[in-house]
């Protein structure tokens, strides 16, 4: 990349004199700044080029090829994408991913908002409760998945024991087509809520107390303050949280891999599970790569919204 080469960067001034004159004209400090800057940026920029940008370009190239573990890659144009359109397994796994997202995003948002509001009330032990609710964030999704699988044990797992002790029917949880997705969702929601609670709590605490106090003096009740003061002013934070949640849920993998491997009968087989298995079980890189690009385009659309938002908060600084 030419911008990284200090010598290529010297003609920065807009004068029309010769190169050597420009070099002399540039004061020593500017030269030092440029050299130090390129030096400081070099390792990270190089790393990003080799391990992020390069692989991204390669990912596009792979998606246009037929590439298996054995044998050389072969250019096949849009064939992989054509197969995707006709592949019922792709449609089904995309459908399950969307189902997962439709469960995950509203559940996490509502719960974390509710908990954030709960904790803004000045009460004794707020810090203690915040710590407790936040604890699952410190746990990996893998351990959370393993732990909940234990509690969801269809035989005598803790959850079923508790259900039967209050006279409710027990469930097969991860073992049954109809409850597997719900089980996986419960774990993901349980694990994620604390994180977004903290973000929303920070957002609420940023709202000047004058507004809510003024509304209270005008006779607004708690619900009205929440509905007409807090919610509108929290909109940027809410928006950010919703976008991040959607992006995360399109990429759900760890807990599904650990809890169900996509089963039973593919009830939790999401798009990323399919991509993973196509590439690292069936070693069909081309087709898997094309699906990864499709997933990328979906995530990209969501990220564009987020970046626009990031930029507006950047300008504010």
């Amino acid at each position: 990349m030419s911008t990284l080469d200090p010598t290529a960067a010297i003609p920065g001034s807009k004068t029309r004199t010769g190169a050597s004159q420009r070099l002399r004209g540039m004061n020593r400090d500017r030269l030092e700044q440029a050299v130090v800057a390129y030096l400081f940026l070099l390792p990270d920029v190089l790393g990003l080029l080799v391990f992020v940008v390069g692989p991204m370009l390669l990912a596009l190239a792979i998606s246009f090829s037929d590439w298996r573990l054995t044998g050389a890659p072969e250019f096949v144009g849009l064939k992989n994408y054509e197969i995707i359109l006709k592949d019922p397994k792709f449609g089904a796994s995309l459908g399950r991913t969307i189902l997962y997202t439709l469960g995950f995003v509203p559940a996490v948002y509502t719960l974390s908002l509710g908990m954030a509001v709960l904790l803004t009330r000045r009460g004794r032990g707020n810090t203690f409760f915040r710590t407790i609710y936040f604890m699952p964030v410190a746990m990996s999704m893998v351990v959370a998945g393993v732990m909940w699988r234990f509690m969801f044990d269809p035989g005598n797992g803790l959850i079923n024991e508790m259900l039967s002790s209050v006279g409710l029917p027990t469930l097969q949880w991860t073992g049954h087509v109809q409850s597997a997705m719900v089980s996986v969702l419960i774990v993901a929601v349980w694990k994620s809520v604390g994180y977004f609670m903290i973000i929303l709590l920070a957002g609420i605490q940023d709202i000047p107390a004058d507004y809510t106090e003024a509304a209270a003096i005008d006779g607004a009740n708690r619900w009205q303050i929440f509905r007409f003061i807090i919610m509108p002013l929290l909109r940027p934070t809410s928006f950010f949280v919703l976008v991040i949640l959607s992006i995360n849920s399109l990429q759900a993998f760890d807990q599904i891999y650990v809890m169900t491997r996509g089963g039973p009968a593919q009830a939790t087989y999401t798009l990323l599970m399919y991509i993973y298995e196509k590439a690292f079980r069936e070693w069909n890189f081309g087709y898997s790569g094309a699906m990864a690009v499709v997933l990328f385009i979906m995530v990209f659309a969501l990220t564009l919204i987020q970046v626009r938002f990031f930029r507006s908060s950047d300008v504010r600084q």
Partner: protein
Amino acid sequence: MRKSPKQLLGSGIYYLICILLAVVFAGPFLWMLSSALKPANEIFANPPILISPNSSLNNFQEVFRQAPFERYMFNSFFVAGTVTVVALLLHAMAGYALARLDFPGKRVVFIGIIATLMIPFYTILIPLALLVRELGWINTYAALIIPAIPHAFGIFWLRQFFLGLPTELEEAARIDGASRIGVFFLVALPLARPVLAALAVFFFLANWDSFLWPLIAANEPDMRMVQVGIQSFTGEHGSAWELIMAASVIAILPTLALFFGLQRFIVASVKMTGLKG
């Protein structure tokens, strides 16, 4: 001031909800710990035994006997620690250059770095795996560490931090004759300690908890990181839940220690990563 009955009822309901939620979020941790300490025949006892009189550390000894968890832990510590330290240094350097130094092409470099945020890890998974295989890094620390280091996110937040930092101290050091590099290492970097601490916790946790990449990059038993270790242990020990729970407790102990020790920084890092500058 005495509270009216209505207020008392209100705070009663408030605490009831708070405590119920606390049970939902902390309960599984306690159940995991309780099960890790139990003998096998009490795991699915009916009714469930909360604190077994037969509690012991036997399951933990058994876990270490059956799988090299000390090795998994070392791998995770080494990988997450190295990534965190190296990444913070490199990101601070890059962020500082973008915030404080003037150079041709700055805007392009910055936008380029931010643009990589839009590339989800899953899209580059296959090419990255092929690249690492091509480099001969499969089952080495290089495969686990090096691709995890470059990350636009850390650069972005450190840039934001340096942009918000008053320049006086750095200017004073310049007047005293310090070089640009000296100013960065001796003045700016120490001032960034709070934001570095918050990012360090965040990076360490993210790498300690990462699963998919270690699963692909290092499948040899000796090179497994702890999450992959848990997963394979679970696969091999099917229903020996007392051992699986003991292994899980081992795997989360360091993160829980970090969590309670550095909670201030964790909360700070969440607020920061969640949009606050």
